[in-house]
């Protein structure tokens, strides 16, 4: 595993997420997020999860973010729509709290013995391995997710429908 790739992808991911949360313009934010999704897919490739990496691009960048940008364009936001109220105290408190959470998590994680990754077994992360597990051990979860998607579709249709009051 090449450490340079890890650091490059990690830097891009974090940088783009930081840029996104400081953005006011949702399209710029969405583009930053797409770049960070791509570098996350790169990290998944480094972790030998090729299938998940492709799914990451297909689902997140190709479907979810297209939907986001579609909605942003659909709303046709003007400059004055993008102005939102600011609360400096609130932001400061949030910064402190999330900094504390990072510190806590890092301290907890470093309690794990610093072992590097073992050699991966043959066929790790391939479509076959994932598929056979999905339709045996996780088949109920798979069905439930299917049901959830159906509920999601119905919910989205109901929400998006124009109401005819009279």
């Amino acid at each position, binding site marked *: 595993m090449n450490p340079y790739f890890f650091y490059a992808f990690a830097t891009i991911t974090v940088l783009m997420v930081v840029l996104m949360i400081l953005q006011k313009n949702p*399209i710029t934010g969405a*583009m930053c997020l797409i770049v960070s999704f791509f570098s996350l897919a790169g990290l998944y490739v480094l972790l030998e999860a090729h*299938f998940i990496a492709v799914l990451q*691009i*297909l689902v997140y960048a190709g479907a979810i973010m297209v939907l986001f*940008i*579609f909605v942003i*364009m659909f709303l046709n936001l003007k400059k004055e729509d993008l102005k939102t109220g600011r609360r400096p105290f609130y932001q400061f408190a949030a910064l402190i709290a999330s900094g504390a959470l990072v510190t806590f998590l890092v301290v907890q994680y470093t309690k794990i013995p610093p072992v590097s990754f073992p050699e991966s077994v043959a066929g790790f992360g391939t479509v076959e391995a994932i598929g056979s597990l999905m339709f045996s051990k996780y088949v109920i979860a798979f069905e439930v997710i299917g049901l959830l998607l159906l509920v999601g579709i119905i919910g989205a249709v109901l929400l998006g429908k124009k109401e005819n009051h009279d």
Partner: protein
Amino acid sequence: MDTQLLHFIIVTLKLVIPFAIILTFIPLLVWLERKGSAFIQDRPGPNRAAIMGIRLCGLIHPFADAMKLMFKEDIIPSQVHKFFYVLAPFIALSVASVTFLVIPFAAPMPFGGGVLSFQAANINAGVLYILAMTSMGVFGIMLAGWASNNKFARLGGLRSSAQMISYELSMGLAVISVIMWAGSLALNDIVSLQGANILRWNFIYDPLACLIFITAAFAETNRTPFDLPEGESELVAGYHTEYSSMKFSMFFMAEYANMVIASALIVTLFFGGWQIPFLDTNTFRTNADYYLYYFLVAAAVCCVILGTFLSIKFKKGRFGDKRDYEPLVFGVPAVVAGLAIFCLLVVLGRFPLPLEAANWIVAVCQIFTFLFKVLLMCWVFIWVRWTVPRIRYDQLMDLGWKFMLPLAMLNIVITAVRMLWQ
């Protein structure tokens, strides 16, 4: 060190050649589109651009167009979002080119103790990678539509994104039945398993999936009858209304690049990819000298016949300018080349080929078969564009969601039943 250098060269070539192929295909397709539309509409088509009086049936026109577009003034309107306005055409073109990297051009061949695959990246989930990358192409169009800050461009971008999301579903579902037959997501396996027999190719085996996939591919590449994002009768020019010069031409090139990729994908999945009809890779490899000999004989005969035919057509004063000499420019070299090949064959006779050379000949033949199939598929795209009118937006959505999506799902069930039956 030497093997390392060889490895480096092979990888570089694998990365460069797909781009080169796409860039060669684009002017060729532009020419084919203009000449094809002229043929369908019964008019001569482009034939004015000339170099030293040689017109080449309008083949000079793409180069003239390229020169014109490069030297035009590059206008960036004042109301646009500059960064995304400039970025959008680059995204459109680069995404289109990256997709080509996983397409297999020929059968993997034994080479220097290892296996040389004619595919830049043989990834485990090749089909999914292509679906993911084609869905990235929409970002270029959407960003162009948004950054132009123009209502027509915005409407074009909106239409494009909605269309892309809708048709991606039927495209993915149509591919599933192909994957079920092949039992693999790797494109090279899908091609290998189709075999050399045309009757075993997926478009015979699974015609419904083929139809759905081709229709969805038309929608994904924004070609007529689904070219609503740039429908010029309603939206001026759609998402590239505000673009000019090289930036416009990048969108234009991206459209053709997408067409090449869609054709390559259709050919790979449904029309046997690099498989030469009725000529198995192994049979071809063992009998390469035999096939090569008779192919060269046939080629020589064709050259001589064609060249003679062209040379006969030469008549001074037919047009009264240098166009008179066009038949001769092609005819005489063709005759000479044909005769030369013939003499060479007679002198050399049938000679046995070393194994390496046979492998290379097979690979080259397969690459050209594949490219020829892709060109034919591109012609289908052009043919449909100049035959079928653009459909209305609600019809587009109805077709995608209410007709093709259920049909694609039904096809998966049918495939499953057929697989159980066998």
